[in-house]
């Protein structure tokens, strides 16, 4: 009997310690990733990285200015597609939606969100590249734009729903039409959350590589306009990492570091804003 109780207590202690170790391992991984990237990518980061074009193999130095601009262009294009559709779709779900149809839209949105990014890339390829006959910034931007829509819809909907009903009733009691109430009272009240949601969405697609591999492809030079292949930061990380050259690996670390800092900064900022507003914090 005594032994039995001892055994139960021992199991209790061991298992609870193990759960702690699991947590430590998960958090440790993040710390390790940050530390390692800082050590290998951050230290060797030079100003040239942001201002110069990639150099040919064998020549040291050079940067990824074209990839940074390329990523910016792709994200701009993606926002032009993803933000309006996602935002207005979210407004529909939160303010106008009927139950059954809304459920279908919501469910489809979640499914589209779960489609592997490489499949979105194939989709954009068949849709644009195959028809146009060449890789382009346009195709890459559309691929990223499609990826942005689901999260933009769901986060917009969520933040609009968090606006108290009394605000809508107040606006309408003052004689505002439904539309006027939504656009002048409800949306401004949820503005901060919606913008944060979209920032998070952008940060996510900013790191996407797979949908760009055969849409915007890559480019060692500046890419004029929207109709040419363009370099992008995540694709550069990939191409340089799998190359056999030592100094390219170094560039891959630098690019990876810049990319990670960008993504994490946006994420941390967004979460701080949201928890201050009491959306995420419990």
């Amino acid at each position, binding site marked *: 009997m005594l032994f039995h109780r001892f055994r139960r207590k021992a*199991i209790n202690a061991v*298992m*609870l310690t193990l*759960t702690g*170790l*699991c*947590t430590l391992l*998960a958090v440790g*991984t*993040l710390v390790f*990733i940050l530390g*390692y990237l800082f050590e290998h990518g951050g230290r060797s980061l030079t100003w040239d990285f942001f201002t110069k074009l990639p150099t040919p193999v064998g020549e040291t130095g050079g940067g990824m200015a074209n990839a940074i601009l390329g990523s910016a262009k792709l994200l701009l294009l993606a926002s032009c597609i993803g933000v309006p*559709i*996602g*935002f*207005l779709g979210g407004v*529909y*779900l939160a*303010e*106008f939606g*009927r*139950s059954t149809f*809304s459920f279908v*839209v*919501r*469910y489809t949105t*979640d499914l589209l969100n*779960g*489609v*592997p*990014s*490489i*499949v*979105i890339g*194939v*989709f954009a390829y*068949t849709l644009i590249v195959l028809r146009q006959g060449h890789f382009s910034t346009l195709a890459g931007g559309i691929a990223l734009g499609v990826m942005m829509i689901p999260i933009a819809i769901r986060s917009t*909907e*969520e933040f609009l*729903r*968090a*606006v108290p*009903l009394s605000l*809508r009733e107040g606006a*309408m009691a003052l004689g505002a*039409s*439904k*539309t006027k109430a939504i656009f002048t009272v409800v949306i401004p009240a949820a503005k901060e959350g919606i913008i944060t949601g979209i920032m998070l969405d952008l*940060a996510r697609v*900013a*790191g996407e*590589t*797979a949908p760009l*591999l055969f849409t915007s492809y890559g480019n060692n030079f500046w890419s004029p306009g929207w109709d040419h292949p363009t370099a992008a930061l995540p694709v550069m990380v*990939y191409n340089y*990492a799998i190359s056999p050259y030592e100094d390219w690996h170094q560039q891959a670390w630098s690019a*990876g570091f810049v990319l990670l800092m960008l993504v*994490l900064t946006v*994420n941390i900022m967004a979460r701080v804003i949201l928890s201050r507003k009491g959306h995420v914090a*419990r």
Partner: protein
Amino acid sequence: MSASTTTGFSARPPRRALAFWTRLRRGDEVAYTLTLTCALSILAITALLVFELYTNSAETRHKFGWSFLSTSVWDPVAGEFGALPFIYGTVVTSALALLIGIPLGVGAAIFLAELAPAKISNALTFLIELLAAVPSVIYGLLGIFVLVPMLRAAEPAIRGVLGWTPLFSGPFYGVSLFSAGVVLTVMIIPFIISISREVILAVPNEQREGALALGATRWETTWDVVIPYARKGIMGSIFLALARSLGETMAVTMVVGNDPKIHASLFAPGYSIAAVIANEFTEATGSLYQSALIELGLVLFGLTMVINGMARLLVLSTTKKGAA
């Protein structure tokens, strides 16, 4: 906040309350149509996606039929295409990731939900969720230059313990199904942790108090009462993680070894559906080759749709919050 309760206005603009023209002048009809169009476009895009993948893979679908999924010869030069090695690699790497990831993830979720004080739990969860935001190409970069050398160094030890199984036989070059499984583990753990933690937190306190009052230890309470109560949601989180690992491209491509053959050993190089598309799509010469890769995309799409669909339903049924 709950997504399923209606906090908006009454479901639609009152149809008969005002004349159509009045509503149009006030903008209601315009806003309704505009936002409805955007909501509809989600359905249209998804339908278009399926349509594009389906029509563009017609050539291989007609030539190979269902045998595409069950043959294992991948020879672009001879025009022979079988998807089995890729399906095998995808399933094996994901299974391995789940095998390691589930105990780790659920364990950490238990710690965060049941043991850690709320402040520490929130802070740690914040950090762990940041892991989910790390781009997959960064995981691949670390995979190539950190994990693979590490596994090479650890190979004798792994072999010493598990070498008697056929799963760890044959030469080990570093890039392998095993390495891909380990990278995937790191990538899916944040999902398992953050969703499982949420569903465990949602278990009513009376359940815990009841078990503790009956003399159960903290662990017995958790394992025999709380976890069974939250099991549907935890299953949901596992399915979501599975769907993500099945479709994961960059990190797997960079460490899996890219060998389109079926090897029993986890130490052997392999391939996955997403990886073969990423690697060979731009160099696919000839329409048959390309069609085969697009059909692989269709297969991957179908696979993740089914898993995701089930995951959403499971999570939905426990937490009433589909957008997990």
